[in-house]
């Protein structure tokens, strides 16, 4: 059965960020702008909560509308993996602002856009669901 699939829109920015000593500095970082599926829009509060659980020691949030910062792509991917566990989703399709822009350019309606989203090159698969043995596997094991 096809599980819940989510789309994560991220951005690469260099906003001013407050470090632990409340000093402002600029660094290039990834930020999540939105997480949604065809059936739900993930609440920003939920994303912020998970962010703090996972990256409690990291720098403070740069903006209310963006979730982050994530220092590199692997940190962003790990966050998406955790998110999948929490939401019990099967996949996250990640796309940047420029991917989003090119998808918007190519599509005429929401259906076309969804097709393009699920053809994204960046896909995170829920490892727990992926590794979960199927009923028949369990039977033969």
């Amino acid at each position: 059965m096809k599980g819940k699939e989510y789309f994560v829109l991220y951005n690469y920015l260099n906003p001013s960020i407050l470090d632990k000593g409340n000093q402002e500095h600029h660094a290039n970082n990834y930020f999540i702008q939105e997480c949604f599926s065809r059936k739900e829009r993930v609440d920003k509060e939920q994303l912020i909560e998970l962010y703090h659980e996972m990256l409690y020691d990291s720098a403070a949030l740069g903006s209310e509308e963006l979730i982050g910062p994530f220092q590199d792509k692997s940190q962003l991917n790990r966050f998406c993996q955790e998110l999948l566990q929490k939401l019990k989703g099967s996949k996250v399709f990640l796309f940047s602002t420029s991917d989003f822009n090119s998808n918007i350019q190519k599509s005429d309606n929401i259906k076309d856009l969804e097709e393009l989203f699920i053809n994204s090159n960046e896909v995170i698969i829920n490892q727990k669901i992926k590794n979960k043995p199927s009923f028949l596997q369990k039977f033969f094991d």
Partner: protein
Amino acid sequence: MEEVCPGPRVLVPINWAFHTENGEDFDFSEKKPETDLELLVSRAKEIGKEIIFLLPVGPAPFLTNCGVPHFLARNFAKDLNGQNKFVIDADGNINKIFSFFDPRIFKGYSRFVHFLGQYFRSKKLNNQILGMRSGYLKEKKMISYIEDHSDIFLNAFSKYLEGEKQIQETKNIEEYNFLSPLFKEKELRRNFTQTIQSFYIDEASRNLSKNWDGALTFSFVGGGPEDFFNKFSAQEEITNYSRSLFDSLSLDVIPSTLLVNEEIKKGVLCRQYKDIVEETYLPIALGRDLYVDEHLSLFKDMHFFEVFRNLSNEGNCWDKQGLYEYLDIQFPRVYKIKETENFKYHDEEEENPVIKFIQARNLDLKKFNQLIKTFLMGGKIIVDRSGLDPDLSKKLESFLLENSIHTQKVRALTDINYSVLGMGGLLCYEGDLIQELSQSNKVEFWKKLISMFEKNHAQVIRDPKVEFFWRKRAATTNELNYEEIRRLNIYNPSSYKQKCKVLLESKFAIIKVNGENNSHVQTGPSEINIDLLPKSQVIIDLGLFE
């Protein structure tokens, strides 16, 4: 036509892209019969309808490419995050927004309105044409679709900045020097955007002068960037749309539900739209039906307060003083938010006096004079004195002294000076001190301040999803006991039962209550209790005694 537009007027948007394939030739029926505007006008006339044309003067979110012909749709408009701007229409189509700062679009638009003007003149069409500015609402602000942060905007903006710099150098203007660079940039970006918007309006007005009747602003419910995610995720909520519809009232813009799917808008949202737009705002905006006859006068918009703000430094004023929060609790839906640049005394204010809130830091000499004139003509004004120009401050003091205007001084959290002249009232306080107060003290402050002005109002206490709005009309010859008649429309757009209570002052009498869908209304001498069933509406008419 009768089925789609049952009223006496039909608003027809003119779609630029529909009339040209290449930008050189324009078709008004020569090739495609459906482009024949003259035929449309005459057919409408046959069934007793009047066509009013709406000409977009920027992106029109309900049209493919937001109205830009395909051969000019090259440069996307972008938001602050660098994302391409677009709108999802009622059928799930993506209407892309292209930069109206692109000189090729302006050139093409000029050419189109030139031919459109020629067509109207040659066919002797005398129908009204209104310019259509489009946008959406976000946190009590109207965001225009013409706003842009793309490279094409930035290129044009840098040229504009150079020009502004030269003007300032030649005139030796230093007015911006005391402002922060961020403020300056925001202000200049806004000015530049407005300048470009006015180019489109001027071009249309010049070419269509005989038919042109000004430009109206429309806010598109479901047309914000957030709405894309809600529409994609099937999370559209009728209550959000309903709120947005009512929020448009406080900004005096005409709401449109064109981007909302038919399935969602049928029922309560459709009724709200009819009551707010078709029956109240549109006739006023079009200058029609203000007076039908003595027995059937139209219910008009009603508000008690006008809050004047300066969009560029909005962050530091009324919000921080807790004014909006107070008004949203005590006087929801009876206040308007306006721009200080539009602050002016109007003659009709004598009939409908409202209390105006002004920030002195936003006043120049011209606006200051308008303020004094409003006070002299019996207007009531609450002025946050913080940041008042020292010269204007002296002028104000000498005006009060020279005219021996009695001023009461009270100390309540800040110094309050209240000057009275006939019907006029001028109340000054120091707003910067209010910003420092706790939220409860802010509420207490506004309560005291506003209680100094007499108002006759029935307060509505309701569950959060309940929406309502007030209208009023003059009493007819059969209603001479009353000064005026007020109509309260209450709606429950949610799928749950909701409660609402109307507190009546002694000056009110209930004239008529129309419940719908078995909603339960219980009337008492000092209050009306209403149980609203899902998707229902109640209309209450109250008479206000003299």
